[in-house]
């Protein structure tokens, strides 16, 4: 009862791939391929084949074969992305990195670790923690998402506020170009100014330049103590103002997260933690350092929030309670599906002082376009996550959703921000890249792309507006507002 579906790839190419990785690691049945064409966005494609690679050599050989056959290749970690970064928009081969599962080294003397692309961020962070060290980037998807994905997307997370994002920890990479050659960038030292910084170029390049096979990352000592605070506000504006004030006064919590009422309700529905459901907004704050510092910071922040009309400030009394609150925060992005079945997640990021303005604008946008919008995110970074809840099968509603997203991008850029703080450009922000970078910026990016992957086979359809699926609604109404931003920077 073989499904009578003609396979789109030549059998000789499939045979060559099977020779490299073994027949059982080449997936060609439609029922299996169909599961490698999505990520956490609402879009779906189907790759022609999935190849599950297990070593550097296999990656090199597979890329060579695909280049000869002129097949697009999309590197994939756990497909948890929110920007369409792993969507196989041109078909081709999905390169599943999941078998690269080794943590090769955790070096306590030199404070670095070497980890393969398929290891989940959480598994890696836990292994590091067991040695008394700390790998801070903590995207909410960490339970599933991989180190390779984190590098490719330059992922962040709540701890980015104090500790920075993936970029700030990657010291060196082993990556494979589309022609199958291996490029080793950076090294094991924190200082390294030897030539162009290819490591930083590859971090966040979304798999469009090379396939990252392993990463050498910097580790830091684990803070001795930490404490989690949950503050509740009757007015959203007071919560936003507290964020601005905490930053303006030079306080430096490890994380400073914003949760609006709708986000709180869905996560309470999931975890039953007893969150204050009648509040309009919450701030979830973590402070860390020495025991004395932690107490001092917690007291200062409590006093400040109370002076800004916080209704309550609660300090988690146990590790378990703190863990529960963080689990809640990290579940929001998924729990919002309890509101409506589909969502469009954004991570437009503005300078920190603009958080109150951004929150206000988002509410206006939701009202103007009549969309269900919830807001949560890394307020301390200026990195909010407006999520529009919708029903992807409702054409009329989706039209308004796509307009609202365009408006969010326009407003973000007007406030001096960026299209994406941590999710990446992928397919979902590619149509707007010119708004942020201008033709000049994009031209440089294209030149870089051509230098690494002249045939444009690696992860096509991402980053560049001319390459990506077109935006579902006309962007004309916004073009005049933002078009020339690239050349009109204040000098």
């Amino acid at each position: 009862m073989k499904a009578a579906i003609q396979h789109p790839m030549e059998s000789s190419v499939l045979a060559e791939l099977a020779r490299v990785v073994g027949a059982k690691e080449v997936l060609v049945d439609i029922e299996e391929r169909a599961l490698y064409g999505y990520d956490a966005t609402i879009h779906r494609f189907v790759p022609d084949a999935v190849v599950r690679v297990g070593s550097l050599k296999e990656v090199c050989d597979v890329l060579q074969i695909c280049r000869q056959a002129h097949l697009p290749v999309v590197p994939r970690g756990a497909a948890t992305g929110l920007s369409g970064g792993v969507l196989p928009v041109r078909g081709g081969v999905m390169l599943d990195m999941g078998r690269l599962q080794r943590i090769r080294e955790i070096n306590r003397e030199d404070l670095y670790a070497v980890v393969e692309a398929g290891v989940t961020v959480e598994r890696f962070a836990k292994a590091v923690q067991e040695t008394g060290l700390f790998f801070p980037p903590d995207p909410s998807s960490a339970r599933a998402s991989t180190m390779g994905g984190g590098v490719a997307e330059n992922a962040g997370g709540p701890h980015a506020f104090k500790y920075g994002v993936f970029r700030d920890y990657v010291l060196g990479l082993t990556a494979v170009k589309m022609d199958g050659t291996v490029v080793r960038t950076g090294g094991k030292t924190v200082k390294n100014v030897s030539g162009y910084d290819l490591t930083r170029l590859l971090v966040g390049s979304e798999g469009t330049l090379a396939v990252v096979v392993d990463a050498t990352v910097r580790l830091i000592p684990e803070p001795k103590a930490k404490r989690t605070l949950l503050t509740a506000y009757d007015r959203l504006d007071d919560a936003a103002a507290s964020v601005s004030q905490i930053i303006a006064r030079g306080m430096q919590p490890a994380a400073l997260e914003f949760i609006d009422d709708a986000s709180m309700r869905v996560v309470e529905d999931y975890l039953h933690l007893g969150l204050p459901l009648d509040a309009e907004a919450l701030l979830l704050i973590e402070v860390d350092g020495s025991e004395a510092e932690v107490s001092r910071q917690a007291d200062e922040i409590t006093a400040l929030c109370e002076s800004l009309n916080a209704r309550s400030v609660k300090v988690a009394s146990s590790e378990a309670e703190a863990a529960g609150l963080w689990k809640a925060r990290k579940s929001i992005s998924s729990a919002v599906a309890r509101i409506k079945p589909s969502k469009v997640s954004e991570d437009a990021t503005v300078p920190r002082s603009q958080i109150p303005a951004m929150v206000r604008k988002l509410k206006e946008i939701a009202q103007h376009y009549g969309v269900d919008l919830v807001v949560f995110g890394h307020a301390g970074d200026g990195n909010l996550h407006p999520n529009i809840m919708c029903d992807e099968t409702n054409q009329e509603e989706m039209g308004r959703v796509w307009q609202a997203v365009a408006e969010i991008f326009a407003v973000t850029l007007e406030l001096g921000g960026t299209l994406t703080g941590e999710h990446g450009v992928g397919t979902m922000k590619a149509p707007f890249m010119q708004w942020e970078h201008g033709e000049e910026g994009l031209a440089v990016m294209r030149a870089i792309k051509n230098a690494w992957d002249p045939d444009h086979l690696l992860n096509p359809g991402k980053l560049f507006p001319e390459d990506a699926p077109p935006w579902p609604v006309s962007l004309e109404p916004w073009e005049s507002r933002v078009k020339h931003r690239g050349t009109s920077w204040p000098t």
Partner: protein
Amino acid sequence: MADLNFPFVDPPRQDQFQSCIKCGLCLDSCPTFQETGRELESPRGRVQLIAAVARGVVPLQAPKVAQTLFSCLDCRACEVACPSGVPIGSLIERGRAQVVGWQAAHPDLHGERSVSTTTRWAVTYLLPNQRRLRRLGWVVARVQRLGLLSGPGRRLLPKAMRAMAQSLPPLSGKETSPPEHTSWSSPNPKKKVGVFLGCVMDVVFGDANQATIRVLDKNGLGPVVPQGQNCCGALAIHAGERETARKMARRNIDAFLAGDLDYIATNAGGCGAALMEYGEWLADDPQYREKAEIFSKKVKDVAQILETEGWQVPRSVMTEVVTYQASCHLSNVMKAGAAPVSILQSIPGVQYKPMADSARCCGSAGIYNLTHPKMAEALLRRKMDDVPDGVDTIVTGNPGCWLQLLHGVQAYHPGVQVRHLVQVLDDAYQRESSSP
């Protein structure tokens, strides 16, 4: 109701699979994904495969659709991990029924059926009828006594069943079920509790049912054993036999709602979880829909009832090092949480050692260990690796796990006992009354 691409009754519903936003937070909770790393063997993959069939991207009869829907352990760890609240278990059960329906409609088809003739016979003929099941128990008891299951005679059995047969505890072959009205030590118990006997529990582990009744009575919770009850139907629903499962559900609802009960007590996580989902099974039955909801609300595991109503701390002292293997359904569906462990820890002298990742499926999963012996064995081995050193007894709360763990200790931890929570508590009470 059926739809275009799921042509049989009870299709996976769009509102059920549409709420999966593909975030991937379920992936690492899934034992089959942990073993294989393949999207096909993950909860997200299974839900999205069902969605792909519904959208017409993948045909229902594609071989791996059947394969992956039936390779799911139905342990429900993914439902706990899913912030969006996708009813993954129900989707897979409904998907299986579609596969079984398609295979039944194509009798000429080549290749293996997802549900073997033996399994089908067992879930549609044997389990719904307690008399037949007991008769089989009687036969097995005789065969065991002749040494046929442990000696060379076991070669007569299918390969996957041989090791299991060897670790099967000796059956009494006698009527183990108590009469409807057990005598209560307190004439006015604070609550009236209907005891659900189960099928495997009744035939293989009748002692645990007796212990359940004694423990309830000891704590002033008047146990009754409603007549006319039968198997919970879980194995039938897992095998895609929804109509059979519904028949069993209706019989249980009638049996238990006849009496004025405060609780319906189960001592088998798998059964309890099934009883709690009768509302979903009978959603399209106008006559039983509401009754099913009322019934399901009363269902609690005996440990949960003791937690809510309070239990007497035994006065006897037991010197036993125990660990606890949570049944997946008991923790993931019934949400028994820490109740069983609190009870264990309350027994004087009992030293409790936590088992890492205790709620991870042991590979039993109903009859999964018979249908998917390789995966079940891999999971059992991992489970056995997690048994803490120096343990005398593994305590569990489900007959499937019990059998699987018996099989496991025989191979990996000879000498370690496997017992049900209520047996340990009952034992402690018994010693209390026998010692001055």
